[in-house]
Structure formats: structure tokens, C-alpha cells
């Protein structure tokens, strides 16, 4: 895991190494200061001012060096940690771009976003602490102990006793509270999730007059959260007094023993200045232990995040482009050969079972079927958005898995059911189809998709900004823009997955007419809810439960009196009936008038 993450350091290795080095320099200076300070204090009161000035100047020089080291280390650590975060985000993003739909569904979009944001931030914080503190604290402890021993070996034994005591208390608290925190933060999340549900469902809450019920529910949850947090914070609260107790105990012991030692040896074994230094070293050591435990806790927190990031970085995409894949697609032929498909290995149910189908190049195929009949699954196999579980899908006579993925997808344009436009101008969005398209080509594509007319009505025409999620165009307009975007690819195969559902029937017919006349050589596959959208196709298949249950032309299927007929009737019969009724009514009226 650490190895995976460390790879993302790249150009920030220098800073990551430099920072702890500089910190070490700062620590050495900081350790020397109390030592020299002791000398300075001991020379006070002497007749000559010279030693005071001598040590004073040295001390000042050292503290300026320390200042420089400290500031530089901080700057380097900032760059190192921000740089690591930057690279991690980029690596996750790049990795996700290689993922197939299957892979993305496996992680879920929301979870991938969290990994790129919250998790990276956690790792960044821990890393920043690590480069600054991981060397600083142990060095501080070691140097301070060494200096203390050099002043007075016996007295520094006090520290050697205090260090493990404090260490055990503080690390003990950290280890004990961490799992509790993990647990109760889940509860805290659940409470906040409840609030969010409540806000989003406020119309439901108010409609059913459930305000009091919701209040009671929330009070119970907030009480549990309060109880748990109070419990864990009370444990955590022992940190402060135990730290104080250790510091105070050390100081008292040193003062007592030190004072006795100074007096009894007449200052030969220990001086007043050295006593003061010892106390300073003691405090430094104990503070360093606190720091260590802090780093420890941060790392525990970051560990989970780091694992989640490493999971993304080391996950290999399930659909990859083959080496030396085919770079030419012969024509727009599509063949399904005994294709079965399920979304995951674990799912028992097949989304598609034993589908065989031949679609000649340049023909139009219509697909009809209820929700959940796997119409979309079928067409998504053509551009390898998913791979088949059994059987094979071929395009232009070759198995889709043999093609270079980019080439295949360039030739198979898919207008998805879940249409998405991106923030940017209309022409920027359309250029997704062809980055080098001229304005003329864009306009032509829009004319085919019956989008040009409404675009011309916008004040900024093709430069109109599309808001995030495409909320400022209507559903029908959005669908037509998405069709135009796909047309710009000049594909051999064009797939429309329920892409004209919000378009009125007249425009829908115009779009199909344009397809027929302008791109006769392109294979067109049209999934629709409306029978009228597919009735003039060369071949129509009806899907139900992942199988092709009916196949034929409009007339053939009507004659079969199957599902197709049923759907057709439900959509048209009533309207026709009404029409004939009103017509006869009008006729009767006329007759009577006559």
C-alpha cells in the first residue's frame, strides 16, 4: 500500500527528503541552545561581560540558523505534501479514465469522488506531519537524552523512567480511543445522513405531518451521539493532566535532587545553569512524545484512506485495448453470436441469454421492450462498454475484442439513454464528436439532428453556454444535441438508446428521414419506447427478459399479435378510436344539419 502511494511522489521526492533533513538541522540547533544557555547563565555575575557576549553571539547565530532551517523545512514539507496530494489526485483520475463501466459501478461514482477528495486530504495531512515530525520527535528525544546525560548521567535517569510511563499512557489512550472514534463517527454520519434525508424529503415529512415523529427520532439519535462522544472525549481528556503530571513530576524531582547535588558538591557536579537546562530538556522530551503520539493517530486515520486510494490505483481495468489491435473497421456489419451477458460474475441472473442477431451494414434496426428487458445491455456490448460473458459480438466481421478500443469506439457512436452535456459552449460540447470539426460541419450535424433551428434562436447561437448537467436546455433539445454530437464522429454504426423520447413525433420523424437520406451507409440501431420511432426500420426486434422474443418488420410483427402488437395497440388504439369517434360524431352532426 505504502509502495503504491509512494510511486506518486515523483517530482516531489527532493522536497520529501529535504524537509526531514532540514528539520533535523533545526532540532540539533534547538538542542544546542539550552546547553549554551546554561554556560551563559553560569558566566553571569562574573566581573567580565565577555563570556556573556561570547555565548550570546553564538546563541543568536544558532537561533538564526535554526530559524532558517525551521522555515525552510516548513516550506519544503508544504510543497511535498501538496505535491503528493496533487499527484495522487491525478493518478486516481487517470486510472479511473481507463475503467470500464463495470469497474466504475463496482466502486460507485460517489465513492471515487470521496477517494479523490477526503481520502487524499487525509493522506496529505498525515504525510505533512510525517515529513516534519517523524524525524523531529525521535531526534529530539535522542538528542535531548544525550545532552541530559552529558550534563548529569544519574539525573537523566529520571527521564528514562518518565519516557516510557508517559509513552504508555498517551499511546494507550490513542490506541484505545481510535477504534471507538471510528465506530462513533459512523453513528455520527448516520445521524447527519438522517438529517439530509429529512431535508430532502421535507415535502413528504410535512405532507404526512411527521414533524414531531422526526423530532423524536432525531433527539434519540443526537442523544446517542452525545453519549458516545462524551464517553470517548472523557478518555481523551486524560491526555492533558497526565502530560502535566509527568512534566511536573520530572521538574520537581530534578529540582529537589539537583538542588541537593549543587549544594552538596558546591556546584562541581552540577551548576545552576545546568539545572535549568536539564529542566528544559525534560520538557522537550515530553513534548516530543506528545508529538509522536499525534503523528501516530494521524497515521491511523490516514491508513484507511490510504488503503482506499491504493485500491483504486492498483485496480486493473477489466476492459483494455488489446496489443496491436485492429485499426480498421471494414463496414458497419454487426453480429451477435449466441451472446449471454451478466453484469457481475456473482449475479445469478443473466441480463442477456443466448442472443443471436445479424445486422447488415447500412441497415436500420429497431429495438422495443419494457424496462429491464436489457435493450441497453445489448447495444452497449457493441462498443465494448461491457464485454460478453459467453458468445461473441463482431463488428465488420471481426470480434470486437480484437479491435484497438479507440478505433472501435470511434466507429461505433452511441447516444446513451443517460444523456450528459458538459459545462461549456454548445460547440465545445459538439466537438467531443470531432475535435477538428469545422463550424460548417458542426452546423450540418445539427441540421441532421434537427437541432440547428433552436440553436439559432439562442442569443449566442453555437456559443451558448451549457450549464452543468445541461439544465438550461429542455430534455428534447438535449437529446438532439447529443445526437448531433454522435453524428460528428461520422461513425460506421450509430446507436440511439431511447434518445428521442422527449422529442415530438414530427421532429423524431424528421431526424429519421435525415438519417435515411444523409447517412445511408451507416448502420443505425434505434431503441425506443414509441412504436412510431421504429416502425419504418428494416428489422425490428422485441426484447423481453434478456431474450429476443419477436423479430421482423413492422407489418410482420403486427401480424404476429404478440407483445409488439400489444404495445402498438396501447399507444395508438385509443387515439385512433377517439379520432374515429369524433369523426363519426362530426359526420352525424353534418348529416343532421343537412
Amino acid at each position, binding site marked *: 500500500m505504502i509502495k503504491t502511494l509512494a510511486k506518486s511522489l515523483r517530482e516531489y521526492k527532493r522536497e520529501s527528503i529535504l524537509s526531514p533533513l532540514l528539520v533535523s538541522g533545526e532540532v540539533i540547533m534547538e538542542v544546542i541552545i539550552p546547553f549554551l544557555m546554561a554556560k*551563559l547563565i553560569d*558566566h553571569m555575575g562574573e566581573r567580565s561581560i565577555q563570556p556573556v557576549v561570547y555565548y550570546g553571539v553564538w*546563541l543568536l547565530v544558532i537561533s538564526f540558523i535554526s530559524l532558517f532551517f525551521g522555515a525552510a523545512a516548513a*516550506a519544503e514539507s508544504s510543497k511535498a505534501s501538496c505535491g503528493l496530494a496533487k499527484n495522487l489526485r491525478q493518478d486516481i483520475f487517470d486510472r479511473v479514465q481507463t475503467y470500464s463501466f463495470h469497474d466504475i459501478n463496482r466502486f460507485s461514482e460517489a465513492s471515487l469522488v470521496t477517494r479523490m477528495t477526503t481520502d487524499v486530504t487525509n493522506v496529505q495531512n498525515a504525510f505533512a506531519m510525517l515529513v*516534519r515530525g517523524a524525524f523531529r520527535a525521535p531526534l529530539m528525544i535522542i538528542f535531548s537524552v544525550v545532552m541530559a546525560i552529558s550534563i548529569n548521567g544519574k539525573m537523566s535517569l529520571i527521564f528514562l523512567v518518565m519516557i516510557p510511563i508517559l509513552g504508555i499512557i498517551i499511546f494507550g489512550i490513542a490506541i484505545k480511543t481510535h477504534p471507538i472514534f471510528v465506530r462513533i463517527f459512523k453513528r455520527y454520519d448516520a445521524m447527519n445522513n438522517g438529517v439530509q434525508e429529512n431535508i430532502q424529503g421535507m415535502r413528504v415529512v410535512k405532507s404526512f405531518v411527521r414533524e414531531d415523529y422526526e423530532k423524536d427520532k432525531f433527539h434519540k439519535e443526537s442523544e446517542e451521539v452525545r453519549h458516545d462522544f462524551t464517553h470517548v472525549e472523557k478518555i481523551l481528556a486524560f491526555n492533558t493532566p497526565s502530560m502535566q503530571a509527568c512534566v511536573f513530576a520530572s521538574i520537581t524531582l530534578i529540582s529537589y535532587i539537583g538542588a541537593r547535588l549543587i549544594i552538596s558538591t558546591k556546584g562541581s557536579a552540577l551548576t545552576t545553569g545546568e539545572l535549568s537546562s536539564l529542566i528544559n530538556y525534560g520538557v522537550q522530551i515530553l513534548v516530543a512524545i506528545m508529538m509522536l503520539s499525534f503523528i501516530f493517530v494521524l497515521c491511523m486515520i490516514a491508513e484507511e484512506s490510504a488503503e482506499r486510494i491504493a485500491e483504486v490505483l492498483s485496480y486493473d481495468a477489466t476492459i483494455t485495448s488489446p496489443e496491436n489491435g485492429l485499426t480498421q473497421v471494414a463496414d458497419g456489419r454487426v453480429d451477435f453470436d449466441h451472446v449471454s451477458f451478466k453484469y457481475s460474475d456473482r449475479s445469478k441472473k443473466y441480463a442477456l441469454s443466448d442472443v443471436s442477431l445479424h445486422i447488415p451494414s447500412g441497415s436500420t434496426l429497431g429495438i422495443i421492450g419494457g424496462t429491464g428487458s436489457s435493450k441497453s445491455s445489448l447495444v452497449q456490448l457493441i462498443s465494448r462498454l461491457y464485454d460478453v460473458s459467453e458468445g461473441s459480438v463482431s463488428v465488420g466481421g471481426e470480434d470486437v475484442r480484437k479491435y484497438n478500443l479507440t478505433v472501435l469506439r470511434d466507429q461505433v457512436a452511441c447516444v446513451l439513454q443517460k444523456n450528459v452535456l458538459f459545462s461549456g459552449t454548445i460547440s465545445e460540447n459538439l466537438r467531443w464528436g470531432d475535435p477538428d470539426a469545422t463550424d460548417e460541419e458542426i452546423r450540418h450535424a445539427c441540421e441532421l439532428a434537427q437541432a440547428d433551428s433552436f440553436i439559432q434562436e439562442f442569443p449566442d447561437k453555437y456559443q451558448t453556454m451549457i450549464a452543468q448537467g445541461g439544465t438550461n436546455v429542455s430534455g428534447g433539445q438535449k437529446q438532439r444535441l447529443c445526437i448531433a454530437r454522435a453524428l460528428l464522429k461520422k461513425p460506421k454504426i450509430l446507436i440511439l438508446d431511447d434518445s428521442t423520447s422527449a422529442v415530438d413525433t414530427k421532429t423524431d420523424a424528421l431526424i429519421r428521414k435525415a438519417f435515411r437520406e444523409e447517412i445511408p451507409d451507416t448502420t443505425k440501431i434505434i431503441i425506443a419506447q414509441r412504436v412510431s420511432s421504429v416502425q419504418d426500420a428494416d428489422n425490428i426486434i422485441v426484447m423481453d427478459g434478456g431474450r429476443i422474443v419477436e423479430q421482423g418488420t413492422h407489418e410482420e410483427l403486427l401480424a404476429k399479435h404478440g407483445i409488439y402488437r400489444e404495445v402498438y395497440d396501447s399507444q395508438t388504439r385509443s387515439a385512433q378510436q377517439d379520432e374515429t369517434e369524433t369523426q363519426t360524431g362530426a359526420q352525424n352532426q353534418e348529416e343532421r344539419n343537412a
Partner: protein
Amino acid sequence: MAAAQNQTAVQTQAVQAATAAQAKPEALASDPRSADKVRSGKKQPSGRPPVKPGTFSRMMKYMFHFYKWRLVIVLICLAVSGLSGVIASVFLQTLVDTAITPGLTKGLQAVYPQLLSIIGTMIAVYAAGVIASNIYTQIMATVTQGTLKHMRDDMFDRMETLPIRYFDQHLTGDIMSTYTNDTDAIRQMIGQSLPMIYQTGLSVIAIVISMLKFSVWMTIGVAFFMYVMSRISKTFAGRSASGMVDQQKSLAAEEGFVQEIMNGQKVVQVFNHEEAAKADFRTFNQKLFEDSDRANRAGFMLMPILGNVGNIMYIALAILGGFLVTLKAPNLTLTGIDTVTIGVIVSFLAMTRQLAQSIGQASMQVSMIALGLAGVSRVFELMDQKPEEDDGYVELVNAGYDKDGTIHETDHLTGKWAWKHPHHDGTLTYTPQQGDVRMFNVDFGYVPNKLVLHDITLYAKPGQKIAFVGATGAGKTTITNLINRFYDIPDGKIRYDGINIRKIKKPDLRRSLGVVLQDVNLFTGTVMDNIRYGRLNATDEECIAAAKLANADDFITRLPDGYDTFLTGNGAQLSQGQRQLISIARAAVADPPVMILDEATSSIDTRTEALVQKGMDNLMKGRTVFVIAHRLSTVRNADAIMVLDHGRIIERGSHDELIAQKGVYYQLYTGAFELE
């Protein structure tokens, strides 16, 4: 020495901050619905306003209200603990001056009593400090979490009473941020920053007084350095803060980009747009890196710089002290003029160090307090929101019928309901509840001067089905918003069973209306819990019967745990159509005389809808129903269909009448018109 205790506080606080960072739940981090339906047109992220004046004292009052005595104890303990640290730094001087220095000449025996008494006092003072710390930290754990609970509860209780308008005008993410980010910041402030600032303040006063007692000259030297340090803090803190703001902005921009791309990942792949997306991301990422580096750099540098300037001050004062001692300069103190001793210098230096550290720590707290106060300000703002007004006095009661047909009120379920209407003259009348809804010339706008509805008049007689048809934004949903008083209009224009709906208590009015909305909201809990939401005392059998009515039973029983299947994330594991079916069952269980179905079957395909339709027909039988539907097959059999356009009813009549008219409805019906 007391620095250690500051350090401790910083440590625990940092631990909490770090653990709090975990708290951001996935669901909150990416709120897919924050782009909520904008009804009133204005729903923008609130420009976080500055802290309202008086927030601090109000918060203090709030806390003292609940924890008066505990807080008094905390304040005392904080003072004891802080002062014990200050006194500690004086001990060394006393030890040197009264025990060590005389001991060097007189010998250990002579000064042993003094030594013991000083050490004894030290132990006593330190023990007092440790005990006081222990007490206040324990109490503060209770007080902090308790205050947060009170705040949360008060906030939530008030939120439940707010009008729908509030929720239409505020982004879910913004309101949520008060519950998450703001309460986290408040916890930080109450639990750590405020106690520390208070303690530091006391310590600084105590230290400055004892410094002056020791030496005025040296105190002036300290003052100079304090000034320098405060300037440094200000510069770096300012730089860090402005960096933070930029970082937040570019973080939001990057998150937005990622959300958008992830959301359209399939489109990205279909168009081979991966490389272009990576390149775009690189730009966002670089900007974020630069801003966060700027923010972090200044923040990281502040501590080592302050620490080392503290060292320099310490050294400079030592040198100054050395001169004073050597030159035997007259020492001006608060108590008079004497000479500087080494003990004075040693103590003074210890105090200097402590002062530097205290101020360094306190400077770190300032931004925490600013953040916390902004949080409190927003919490109070939510608590101060004006609740939904309800001047209604007509109540819905269980009705019993006397033999002669007059209605009386009973306290048991009779299956019949009546409106209990007290009049000005003190008399009471009971009107049977039938579900007769009428609107007279209703004009309405969410914002003044921008009418959404014009002159709407309609009668829905008991048991009738009224349908609304029209483009998005035509005002269909607005009409239903008025019927259940999510939004209020002037008196007398809407009557329910002949009663002005403004006179009906809102809860009673809403209880008599069932609503199924297009945006289905299910709550975390089992399927059964969700259906029972319609009527809390419904039995399992009643819930299942309702599910059967809505044709939901079939798919529910096929779920892994049937009715006990646990739903999370707004029923994320179900399809949109299945969620709509559950919400229909939920309304069915409530069994109200009037139903509002707002695009209730929009996500159910036509074949399934035909199946649901039967259930829906059962559900609608004998009730007054308002139907809003996109799909015209849904509204065909309505008694009256209103075609809305830009807030006006442009056509009305039965399906057959409208078809005969060959107007807009006819065009819609034959598909010649786009409905979106």
C-alpha cells in the same frame, strides 16, 4: 513548563480535528441531489455572511443556561491550572535564591528546611494544577458535547417547523453544512480554543505582572519582541487565510469538474475523450496545488518562525540580563529599585519562554475561534428562522353520527371524519369531511411581482379526478403546493369542504391530503417502515394490503429480505419505478380522502403502468384526486383535465371534449408537441 500543557491541548485538539476529518460521510461529500428542483428560481449557495454582532455573548448565555455551575467550576479550574503553570516558573528563582545560593556557602543542612518547604509547595501547587486540569477537561467533555446536542436539537426542531419556502430557497448542502462543518467548528472552539484563550489571557496577565515585579527594563524588552511576534503572526496568518479561501475555491472547482466527468463517464468513454479529460483535470489540479501550497506554506511556517523568534527573544533577554547583572545596574521593579540577581534572570527567562509559547498557541486559536463563531452565527441564524405560520383553528376530528344524522365528536376511530369549526359567537359546528376542493380566481407568485399562476378557478367535487397537463414550469406543481398550504395565498380563495383552508390547522389539513411526488424520498429503514410512514399505527397486514393495492407487493416479496429489506441512500438499491410504487403504497396506507399525485408514475414504463393503473384506480376510488402527469395516458380517464400554460388554464374539459376541441391538448395527445 506550562508550555507543555499548551502543547497537550494542541495535541488533543489536533487529534480531534483529524478524526473529525473522517467524519465527512460519502453521502455528504457528494450530494447528487444538491441540484434540487429549483422552484422559486432563486436557489443559490448562501454567500456565507460574516459573524453577526452579539453572537459570542448569546452563545455564552446559551451555554450558561444549560451548564451554569459546571461552567463556573470550569472557569475556576482553568484559572488554577493556568496559574499553577505561571507559579511554577517562579519556583526555580526561589529555589536558586533561597536554597541553592545560600546553600553553597552555608551547606546543605542549613538550607534543608527551606529546600523541603519549596519542594513541598511545588508539589502542592503542581498537584492542584493537575487536579484542576483533570476536573475541567472532564467537565468540558460533558459540556461541549451537551451544548452541541442542545444546539442540534434546537436547530432540528426549528427546522421542522420552517415553511417549504425555506427549503426551496436553500441548498440541501448549505443546510447540511450547518449540521456538519459548523458544529465541528463549534466543538473545536468550545472544547479547545476558548478554554485555551481564557487560560492564556489569565497567564499573560499573571506573567506580565510578575515580570514587572522582577524587572521593568527586561519587561520592556519582552514587550518589544511581543510586538514583533504579533506582526509576524498577523502577516503569516493573513497569508494563510487568503490562501485557504483560494484553496477552498479551487477545491470546489476541481470537485465540480470531477463530479461532472464521473457523472458522464460513460459519455467520456463513448467519445474516446479520456485524454482530453485528463488534460483538463491537470489544469484544475495544478491550480489547486498552487493554492493549497500557498495556504499550507504560510500556516506551516508560522510555528517554527514564532518558536525560533521566541528563542531569539530568550537569548536577547539573557544577554540583556547578563549585562544588567555584570554592570550591577539599578533594577527598576514594581516594588522599587534593587539589583538584578541570577535567580531573577533565570526566572525571567523561564517566564519569557512561557509567554512566547502561550501567545504562539493562542495565535493558532484565533482562526479556530473565527471559524467557530461563524459556525455559531449560522446555527443561531437557523434557530431564528421564522416558523411556518398557522392561524388555523378548524380541526379534523373523528365523527360519530347520531340517529338523527347530526354529527358529534368521538375519541375513537369511526372511519368518518368531520371538521370541527368553532365560531366567533362561541358556537361549534361540525362539517363532514368529504373532499370538496375549490379554487376561486387564484393568483400566485413565489416572489412578489412575478406571478406563476393567473386567475385559476376550479372545482373538484368529492370523488372527482382532476388532471393537470402542461409543460415544465406551467404551474402544475404550484397548484398542489397551494392546496396543502406549502405556500399560502390570501384569504378565502381556496375552500375545502366549504371551509377557507387558512382557517384549517395545517397538520389537520395535510393529514386529510395524501401526496405522491415525482421525486420519491424514501428514508433509511426497512421497506415496511417506509410504507408505515403513511400511518404510524398501521399494522403489518395493513401495510402489505396497501402495497398490494399499489402493485408493489410483487416486487417487494422478491427482494432479498422482502418487506424487511433495509433501504439506504433514498432506496438506492431500487429502480426509480419501484421507489415510486413504494411511495404510492405509503400514501395508500394513510388513506386520505384527497390525493395529490404529482408525476407519480413517470418512471414506470407503459406496460408496467398498465398494471399499476389498476391499483391506482383502486386507490383513487371514492377519493378526490389531483393528478399531474407527463404521460397523457395517465390522465385520460380524469373527470376534468386542465391544460396549463404559463400559469393559466388554457383548456379544460374531459378527454373527449378536449380531443374534439382540436386545441393544444389534441396536439399534445397526437405527439405533435414536445412536452418538457
